């Protein structure tokens, strides 16, 4: 039973991590730790500015 719960937790954790990556939340967290800032409207604006170059050049398929 404990093993099953552990598996479910691991599965859910990976799913959530994938969603956080797809939705750029993980990228924002990395940005905050890299530049030593806390989450605020200024730091998010700075993140978006830095990320814009990479993110908006990303093609999306048909």
């Amino acid at each position: 039973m404990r093993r099953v719960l552990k598996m479910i937790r691991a599965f859910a954790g990976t799913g959530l991590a994938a969603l956080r990556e797809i939705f750029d939340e993980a990228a924002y967290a990395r940005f905050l730790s890299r530049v030593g800032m806390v989450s605020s409207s200024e730091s998010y604006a700075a993140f978006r500015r830095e990320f814009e170059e990479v993110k908006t050049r990303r093609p999306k398929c048909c």
Partner: protein
Amino acid sequence: MNKTFFVLVWVAIAGLGAVAVGAVALHRGEPINALWLVVAATCCYAVGYRFYSNFISARILALDGLRATPAERLENGRDFLVTNKWVVFGHHFAAIAGPGPLVGPVLAAQFGYLPGTMWVLAGAVFAGCVQDFVILLFSVRRDGKSLTEMAKDEIGRVGGFVAYVAVIAILIILLGVAALIVVNALKASPWGTFTIAMTMPIALLMGVYLRRIRPGKVLEVSALGFVLVLAAIWGGQYVSQHEAMARLFTFSAPTLAILIMIYGFFASALPVWLLLAPRDYLSTFVKLGTIALLAVGIVLLHPTLHMPALTRFVDGTGPVFAGRIFPFAFITIACGAISGFHALISSGTTPKMIARETETRMVGYGAMMAESAVAIMAIIAACVMQPGIYFAINSPAGIVGQAPAAAAATISSWGFPVTAADMQSLAHAVGEQTLFNRTGGAPAFAVGMAHIFSHSLGGETLMALWYHFAIMFEALFILTILDAGTRVARFMVQDALGHVYKPLGRTSWYPSILATSALIVGAWGYFLWQGVKDPLGGINSLWPLFGIANQLLATVALCVATTIIIKMHRAKYAAVTLVPLAWLVAVTFTASWHKMFDANPRVGFLAQARVLAAGPMSPATVRVIFNNRLDAAVTGVLVVMVTLVLVESARQWIGIVSGAREARVKESPFVRTRLVEERE
């Protein structure tokens, strides 16, 4: 014991797959259950992944788990980043799965369920998954280089230039076709138009929320946005029932086309955080949820397919688009089988996140298999409808007539009975005024999806809500591609123009932003306008053009892959990419020939121009004649360019195999990974 057990399991899976494929392929007469398609697909994917991708990994690519990837060597916390393989898988799948695997199979269902299903299964396992996998691995071994850079390095300058032009051409044609699908789905539909219009203030609100109220909480705000979108769908029914409001949100196709062009321009020129990024998040949120829901719905309902295995339209006289099963079925379905566009994603963000080379198999081959499964779901959604209803929705007025009774009589005369009353009652059930002549694939998919959802999750009373949910889902998807695609194309044009006049290359210089945005929107807007004004519904001309352009890009990607495989001294295994390449060349060149020179005016651009030129002239006719000649010229230019890449690649292959050329791949040098030691 263990080995024997696994052999038996795989023999059972292969046997079950063979039976299911056989049932799908050979069954005639009585309708077939959709579960046969699901089982056939599942078994084909399992066997393909376990054995074929393993063969490619071991014998050709020699994946090396000890070789450091660019994500590790060049890690910078931005684009280069070591990431969990399942996370990369989700990320890659979210990028490759667009509306293509939904719309293409729905359109190709006019041939019956069999051709589309077989092409999706065989195309994915032997071509699409292989292309995505090898291009991803080759990009990983080249510091995450793009397809155009790899083409330049491995084939030569011609390859790089053609890949660059093909990408821009595909983007422009794709954006025009995508916008046309939205226009056809929303014309004369106040409910759908209201819902989509509401997604714009919702996206703006999400942008402000993300920036000012809860910075960076994207999942949270996407969930909130999703709830607001559901409220907009719910509210749409009241708008459609209110006379004044319904009038306000009822637009003709040309008006919608102009509105979408204005939207595309602003979305490209506005700051990303305000409209583009929140909309992208909202669309992805809806997309992943809906695909999962559709899979559950199909398994729960396991509906019967009413469309026959093969229809009479395999002879090329189909009303949805003209042209014989070969080559047109194979360019109509791209994304679910093989899509050149995927090579851009496989050589874009994904290779910069892969932690170990061995993971490229699961991400590249596996994610494409998942997309192929989405295409199978789309085939099921299209084929659960009665064929008469399918053709009534997808046939343009130019073929079946404008009046419901006449259209129903024409379609019934083809052997697919349908009445105007049936269509009226279906339109009423989904909250629309009419479902006749709703070309483009999106409304038909929405009806199929609403059928599956309402029969498995919620009952008939929710049919209208599910239909508009499906329309919103597709339109949101497509509008996201429009604004992201316009921006990507703008950057590419700015990069090129920067070589001519430096300030034009600056992505922050507003005159350049406005000029290049207008240029790109004008280019795809031209194709959109052409489609809107086309008496045959636009899709008949533009979808094949898009399919040809997309598959020609796949041809370039497979040329790059074959060249690298031969340079790696694996020429004896080059058939793995050469066979799909040969198939694509046969398909795309034949399709291009037909689209340019076929004597049937419904198929050949030039034949249609000739027929129109022989009749009475009006300004509209002159425009249609010009458009047909332009489409023929665009097709011709693409074919000539890809021929150049083929010739250049073949020269490389012959030179290397005969020993006249040096076989030197341009890979990054081997560096041993530290990740294994860390794990140890």
